């Protein structure tokens, strides 16, 4: 019994000494610095946290250095925040800890990156229209990622990055990959919206960036313009619901902004014109055009247009315009006196 007690005593008092000598393999490197956000943008605030599976960080002295300069220290000082700085200007960060298991150091470099997401729709824009083609149902959307990944003053070419595209949270695997910096996908459903996001990273994962955008479906609209014999289509003057026209014969043209078509006379578009409730048959080569001759007619010409698409059943637009010609008399109603329309 004495022998057992003696052995236990020896072991009990010897344990601390053993423990001090005990080294967990890799403990000196078993610290890491995590970054939030994981892909900081230039000028943003970055939260850096020291983590370790072995070291008791909460009760150990920790020292942080940024670009070699001590910026924080103290027991349990596991977190600091830094400014990500400018693009291309990497920030070297180190954190060292002294614990019962010994010392350990972790390093990381903060490289701020940015990605700009640009998009447009394949929808029809009339000539000289200065605005963006919006996303109406039936169109496709082209999205381009412009990554700005700089090391020093050298920008990593977009073609060398690996892209992961997501549409409303779902990874678009077949459209992702190295150099896939642009994406073509369907426009949101009618009245719907899609969120498109992309993550880009270097092949070694040292630099990464993310971006996302929300695209809302646009309601198709059709505008009516005068096709003037001298001045051409008066794109600057869309006709309102009620218009006075001091002419006898006028040609009109309907412009379906952002329709899934290549031009206003695209064969895929179906125009259904009515003048004072009477169906008008127009030239099949120029179905967007309507000519009205008001000579000898009276009243108001009520033009109704219903626009459809041969293959896209979600696309549709309607318009109605009252045209009061100088040669006609108002207030009578033109139903019994149809205008000569073609």
């Amino acid at each position, binding site marked *: 019994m004495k022998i057992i007690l003696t052995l236990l005593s020896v072991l009990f008092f010897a344990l601390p000494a053993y423990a001090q000598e005990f080294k967990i393999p890799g403990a000196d490197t078993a610290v890491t610095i995590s970054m939030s956000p994981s892909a900081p943008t230039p000028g943003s605030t970055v939260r850096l946290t020291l983590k370790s599976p072995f070291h008791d960080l909460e009760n150990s002295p920790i020292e942080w250095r940024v670009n070699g300069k001590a910026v924080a220290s103290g027991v349990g000082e596991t977190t600091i925040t830094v400014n990500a700085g400018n693009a291309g200007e990497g920030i070297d960060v180190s954190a060292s800890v002294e614990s019962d298991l010994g010392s350990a150091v972790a390093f990381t470099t903060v490289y701020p990156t940015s990605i700009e997401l640009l998009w447009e729709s394949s929808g029809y824009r009339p000539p000289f229209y200065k605005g963006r083609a919006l996303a109406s149902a039936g169109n496709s959307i*082209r999205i381009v990622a412009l990554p700005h990944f700089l090391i020093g003053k050298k920008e990593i070419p977009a073609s060398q990055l690996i892209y992961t595209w997501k549409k409303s949270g779902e990874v678009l695997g077949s459209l992702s990959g190295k150099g896939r910096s642009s994406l073509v996908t369907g426009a949101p459903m009618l009245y719907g919206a899609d969120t498109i996001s992309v993550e880009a990273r270097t092949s070694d994962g040292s630099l990464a960036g993310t971006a996302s955008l929300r695209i809302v479906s646009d309601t198709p609209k059709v505008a009516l313009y005068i096709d003037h014999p001298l*001045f051409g*289509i008066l794109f600057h003057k869309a006709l309102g619901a009620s218009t006075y026209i001091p002419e006898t014969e006028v040609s009109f043209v309907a412009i379906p902004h952002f329709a899934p078509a290549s031009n206003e*006379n695209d064969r895929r578009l179906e125009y259904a014109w009515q003048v004072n409730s009477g169906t008008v048959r127009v030239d099949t080569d120029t179905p967007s055009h309507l000519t009205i001759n008001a000579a000898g007619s009276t009243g108001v010409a009520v033009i109704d247009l219903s626009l459809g698409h041969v293959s896209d059943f979600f696309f549709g637009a309607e318009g109605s315009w009252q045209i009061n010609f100088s040669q006609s008399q108002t207030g009578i109603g033109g139903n019994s006196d149809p205008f000569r329309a073609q």
Partner: protein
Amino acid sequence: MIHMSTPSTIIKYAAAAILVMILGGLAGWYVFVHRQISATESADSARGFGEDASFASGSGSSFGNISTEATDVGIAVQAGNRAPKLWQLTRTPVAGAGFEASTTKLYFAERASGNILVADPGRSTIERRTNTLFSKTYESIFARDGSVILRGISDSGDISSFAARIASSTSPVAGDTPNKLEGVYLPNDIIDISARSKDQLFFIIPDPAGGSTGITSDWKGAGQKRVFSSALTNWRVWYLSDGAIYILLSASDDVLGNAFKLNSDGTLTSVVGNVPGLTILPRANSSALIFGSSEGGDVALFSKASAGATAVRLPIRTIADKCVWESSRELIAYCAVPETPPGASYLRNWYSGNVHSSDSIWRVDVSAGTTERVYSPIESVALDVENLHIDDSGSYLSFMNAADKSLWMLTL
């Protein structure tokens, strides 16, 4: 006693009857023709006809359209005298305008004919420079020597761009016949084009494989060099006199917009980004920028005195499309501002001709971040200002009325 008519009497009656019938017929024919002429004149007048042909006089077909007698604002214009404070140069649409370098002369192109005219506000005169017909010219871009790009729509529906020069010899004296406009057609379907000088152009054309390509060339379309390519097409471009090229993905309300400076290696440097409904106005020989936003039915205008400066929101609500930089060393701009809030979807509605405003004009000192009203709308004249230009001396501001494409000039 029965009086018998003699053959000579019968002949006299018959002749009289024939004469009456002829006179009646002629009278009827006169009335008929007169009515037709009246109807035709009425219709032609409504269409803007009834003016001189494109030949003969110094200003040709636009002579009657040009306000040499009186403007719509009731201010008399006397040829030989200085132009009034607000001068309406044309009543019919124009395609565009631009001041001549180092002078106050303004070149402009008629929309109907593509003819080039030049207005001199110092003498309130307008002279025709060319009579070459380019019917239905929708857009024109002028270099500072009067060289011009006329843009229209061909019969096949393509956008055509004709780059032409006006030789100094085409400057007419009174009574001379204007000369031809000679030039070359640039590639079809140019999406947007900008002139740095009389020698250098930058334009964007669709790529057959998709996307678009940016090209620099001389005024004859020669020496083409691809300097930009993109998977997108909805670009607007500015090629400034200092050689800087800016591009903007076309704006739409509530849609984030981005603008870039194009570097010589084809890469893009972001100038301003992620701004809803972004419109821009870059400035030559400076990194100063005016930009506008349109979001949630509200428009706002911002300025940056330099690339690194913080954007300052200006106390006027308009878009950059309604602004122009003065060419002086100071960062002065002039902006047209709708008198009433433009409302929701302003950009879309304005670009498509669905809304028009009545604008005042403001002087903007970007360095100081201050604004000053220099023109208030006249009650009878609503001017929806677009396509602004300012002469080198900063004395005259020209613009088009977006509501009817008429041309105006304001003495500053």
